[in-house]
């Protein structure tokens, strides 16, 4: 049994960690957070040059042609560094959607641009407050023209292309929309984590090209979200680990009542519980990585498991990291709030935790009922 990453994959993780330590210190995150720019363009270019954006994209489409396990270890490091770049939107969602459902022409047109970072992609799914389901989609395509409002769309303000979930004929389908073309209005929106952008996209007869076979749209969207959920779970695990380390380091350094605060059991036990949550989440994320990389029919269960567990862990570690820091944790100057913001933004980005809990139970039930359950 080798339920672990290979030595080469671990080396890649180290390489990514070194690169990000150099190119993505917290000052870089703050530069985006504090509004100077919508994302870190230099870092994005650097990630492309390192081959990180195209790690799981085949060479024939301009990628590096490694695989999803490699992308997982890169994701973990991006999460650890809170990298202020549109990785999830462009790579985990848009590129995955194209790889899963795109025609050869669509892949040839867009994947090289996404792998090189020249174009940014995103997935436009949500349409306002509440859970998004197949039945709630109102955005409409007729005669190849798309109309409706998508909000929020992660990185919608900077994306060049969107995979839009929209109603067409009888059902819900996926469409590729060039956001720099006609019929698209965008508005940048404030979010709880300004280190990542959110936007409203209003489509008014925007030219839309169908992605994937007719009748498959919602199923494909669900598959793409599962794939992204595994990758984001690695970002969450990376963030959780870093928040735990920050809390641990502060508990060792900070003196109160004549002792290190890390010698108080109230603090020790809080940090131990953070470690427990982070460990469970890492193990579940590995399960997701295994299912994603092997094309296993377990992916729907594994992705939902990884997603729920990693969401819990990152939120738990980020909020208690502030608690360990006490008042200092609530200052703008300390980095604790960067993790707190990101943990809560990632908890919502692909659909809320309660949505994924629901999916998990549906899928466990389906697996339970299957005659030859794995």
């Amino acid at each position, binding site marked *: *049994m*080798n*339920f*672990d*990453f*290979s030595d080469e994959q671990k080396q890649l993780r180290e390489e990514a960690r070194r690169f990000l330590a150099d190119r993505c210190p917290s000052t870089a995150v703050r530069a985006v957070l504090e509004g100077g720019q919508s994302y870190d363009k230099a870092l994005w270019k650097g990630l492309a040059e390192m081959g990180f954006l195209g790690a799981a994209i085949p060479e024939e489409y301009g990628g590096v042609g490694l695989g999803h*396990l490699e992308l997982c270890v890169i994701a973990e490091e991006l999460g650890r560094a809170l990298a202020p770049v549109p990785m999830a939107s462009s790579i985990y969602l848009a590129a995955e959607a194209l790889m899963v459902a795109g025609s050869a022409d669509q892949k040839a047109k867009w994947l090289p641009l996404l792998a090189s970072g020249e174009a940014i992609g995103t997935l436009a799914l949500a349409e306002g407050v509440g859970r998004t389901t197949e039945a709630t989609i109102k955005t409409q395509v007729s005669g190849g023209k798309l109309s409706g409002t998508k909000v929020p769309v992660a990185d919608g303000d900077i994306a060049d292309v969107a995979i839009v979930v929209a109603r067409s004929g009888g059902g819900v389908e996926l469409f590729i929309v060039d956001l720099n073309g006609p019929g698209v209005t965008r508005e940048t929106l404030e979010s709880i984590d300004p280190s990542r952008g959110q936007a409203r996209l209003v489509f008014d007869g925007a030219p839309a090209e169908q992605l994937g076979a007719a009748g498959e749209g919602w199923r494909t969207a669900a598959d793409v979200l599962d794939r992204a959920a595994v990758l984001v779970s690695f970002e969450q695990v990376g963030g959780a680990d870093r928040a*735990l380390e920050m809390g*641990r380091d502060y*508990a*060792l350094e900070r003196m109160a009542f004549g*002792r*290190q605060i*890390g*010698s108080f*059991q109230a*603090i*020790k*036990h809080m*940090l*131990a*519980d953070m*470690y*427990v949550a982070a*460990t*469970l*989440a*890492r*193990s*579940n994320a*590995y*399960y997701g*990585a*295994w299912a994603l*990389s*092997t094309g296993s029919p377990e992916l729907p269960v594994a992705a939902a*498991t990884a997603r*729920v*567990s990693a969401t*819990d862990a990152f939120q738990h570690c980020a909020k208690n990291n502030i608690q360990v820091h006490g008042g200092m944790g609530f200052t703008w100057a300390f980095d604790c709030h960067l993790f707190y913001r990101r943990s809560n933004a990632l908890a919502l980005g692909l659909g809320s935790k*309660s949505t*994924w*809990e*629901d999916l*998990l*139970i549906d899928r*466990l*039930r389906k697996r*339970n009922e299957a005659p030859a359950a794995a």
Partner: protein
Amino acid sequence: MNFDDTPQEAAFRAEARAWLDANAPRELEADLKKSGFASMNVGDRDPIAVSKSWQKTKAEAGWACLHWPKEYGGRGATPIERVIWGQEEGVFSALSGTFTIGHGMCGPTLMAWASEEHKRRLLPTMASGEHIWCQLFSEPAGGSDLAGLRTRAEKATDGSGDWIINGQKIWTSGAQYSDYGILITRTDPNVPKHKGLTMFWLDMKSPGVEVRPIKQANGQSSFNEVYFTDVRIPDDQRLGEVGNGWKVSLTTLMNERLSIGSGMPTGFPELFDYCLNLQTMDGPAIDDAAVRSRLAQYAVKASGLKYTGMRAISALSKGETPGPENSIGKLVAGASMQELAMFALDLQGQAGVLNSPAEADAAGRFQAMLLRSPATRVEGGTDEILRNIIAERVLGLPGDIRVDKDVPFKDIPTSGRG
């Protein structure tokens, strides 16, 4: 990343499976599968007798205590082979429960500290299940603070070199049917508590040993008190130097925490099945949003423990030592099971209060879980001690400030009101 056996592992698995196919006690299988939480079901048979019989069969064919050296009754197997054996033995591994303390804790302690002659005499009969062993550590005054124990060992005044033991142990699993035990005692109350301890092994049939079952909070009796009144132990049964008992006990406790892939039950599969079938006013319980959310939370904990175990097994497979992540198992499983049991009873409404297997829903499975789960959070290291271990050994946080560290044992206060 894969769950596949290496060729050697696959060969070992095939060999184990073939032997089990030919030799496993199939007549017990149906009853064993009906085993409830923390209790083994073997029908009307004598549980000790069937356990001993299966252990003997395994030992004769070289499938007992796989990781022990052959000369002590083991197989000299690798840690990963031991895990594979456990997977293949499956439901029949419940029959090893009687021997867990001996094989998991007493055996390794003897291996590290006993004389060669004693090892060759005692270990093979421990491996084969002929003799059952218990571990006499906890005391009314020494649980989490094990080194606060008060059972005295004093040199006999007759010049024999023997030791005379007086005192009381508590929470001793299996003492009522054990043949031998390892015993930690205080030999010097005039030095700080960790320095005055000495370890022995002893015959549980020695005069002056009295075993009394403890009636537990859940009404069962699986633990005991053991009283020692002028019990005589020869000096050659001492394990380690006089005053070195703390270090010897750490050998035992380290082994307690090294059991890999043992898969602590969380109760999740049982609760999931239950919710699939439980009908409420609004249809099956599993269709209820609140139920689904709770189930999902338990599901990811159970899954997290399962795959944490897989990571540990992978480390063993590569010949590495598993990381500290393994220390979370009991902490997560114990608390999870207790919450889950309360939730299951809540789903049963007022009828959740019923406890007889005939009346209670799901044959009283969750009621039994509810009443037993407090023990899981205490035995073998409380939740709080486990969190201390994670905080100190994994995260590198400072140890507790110990006000009794340099105080002679006899001067340590024993009552807050004294």
